[in-house]
């Protein structure tokens, strides 16, 4: 169902015409969310970022608005690794065209580089990295290495 975006009153950043709004990002993770979806200083998208915004739901939250880009399902699921409670709004002509939650994927194929230099996935072999997503860790399905911190830093 298509419905209107609430009026921009009180918002720190203005509405977008077309694109994606990622709301309820864990406070402080907005820049990592951008990194996960491949937005860097050299990409062309117009991006607005608000951090530590008051939120009734979680106290503080971050918001990211990206103009003229709609996220794919696998990009949304990657975000769930660091911000499991985000809601993603696809905006078309200033209206919310679709609203989606994210799902933590069970497995990550070719998304994260194994930090273990001795892992076979870092050797010259015809395979991609494969991680199992567990409650607090990522588990390398080749060498059993566990990533507990800085998941974004290990993304390919």
């Amino acid at each position, binding site marked *: 169902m298509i419905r209107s975006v609430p009026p921009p009153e009180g918002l720190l950043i203005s509405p977008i015409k077309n694109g994606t709004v990622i709301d309820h990002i864990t406070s402080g993770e907005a820049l990592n969310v951008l990194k996960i979806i491949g937005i860097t200083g050299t990409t062309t998208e117009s991006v607005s970022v608000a951090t530590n915004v008051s939120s009734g739901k979680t106290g503080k939250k971050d918001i990211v608005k990206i103009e003229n880009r709609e996220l794919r399902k696998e990009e949304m699921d990657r975000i769930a690794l660091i911000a499991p409670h985000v809601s993603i709004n696809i905006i078309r002509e200033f209206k919310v065209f679709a609203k989606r939650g994210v799902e933590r994927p069970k497995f990550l194929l070719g998304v994260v580089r194994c930090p273990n230099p001795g892992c076979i996935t870092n050797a010259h072999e015809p395979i991609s990295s494969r991680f199992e997503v567990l409650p*607090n860790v990522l588990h390398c399905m080749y*060498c*059993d290495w566990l990533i*507990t911190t800085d998941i974004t830093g290990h993304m390919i």
Partner: protein
Amino acid sequence: MKHIISIRDLDRPFIDELINHANHIASQHFNANSLSDKILALLFFEPSTRTRMSFEAAMARLGGTSISVGSIEASSISKGETLADTIRVVSGYADAIVLRHPKEGAARLASEFSSVPVINAGDGAGQHPSQTLLDLYTIQQSLPLDGIDVGMIGDLRYGRTAHSLTYALSLYRCRIHVISPKGLELPPALIGELRDRGTEVIEHEHVEDIIKELDVLYVTRIQRERFPDSASYFDVSSSYKVTTELLEGVRSHLIVLHPLPRVDEIDPEVDTLPYARYFEQSRNGVPVRMAMLQEVLK
């Protein structure tokens, strides 16, 4: 097709059944020709004495044949062939592959490219499931596996046998006591995972603090190359040495295990004490590996 790659893939019923099977084999209840039409390829990219010879002996005892690459240097591997290609080729020559490789996860990769079962015989600092199975087998010869106190001493950071065994012991609700030099502790992520699985892991600074409350003492080698110089190695290794004095007053049923080879970790005088089971443990490699071969080739 059944591969045996990591102890993490095995559940308790499978392990219990395999141990039972090995017990039957050890009491001479097996068909000496059961694998007479089978060929086992031994692909060892790293040196090995016990593991390689006990797999060969296990295959021979079941009437099967083993083939292997004479030397890695003289093979296509030295020409830069990927492990994936080597496995594809070798799985066309044999009915099962036993692989030892310096890279962690190599056996998992092999299982994805092989058309025959793969058994991991050690991949880097990673998994060594046949060693873990024979460790469990040796413990259950003397003690029930459930709820015992197991002390792990030595290099617990890089020692693959320690990682695999602590994980397997968590299936049996054992209490795990870890004693290791600074810098060679069990990886914190693994300790966290064991605790999440409900296993009690207790860290001790000195083995003397806990030795009298242990049912099993599992000793691993402290590798000299982990230390900046010989002096610091000798300092550490001497303080982690198992001696007859250390074993005074321990539980009468204590068993001391070591995956071997040992260097200085266990004083040779300990060999004659009833606690010493490491040579028996090494011998147990044959019935346990016979059970594994029958399992994957059945």
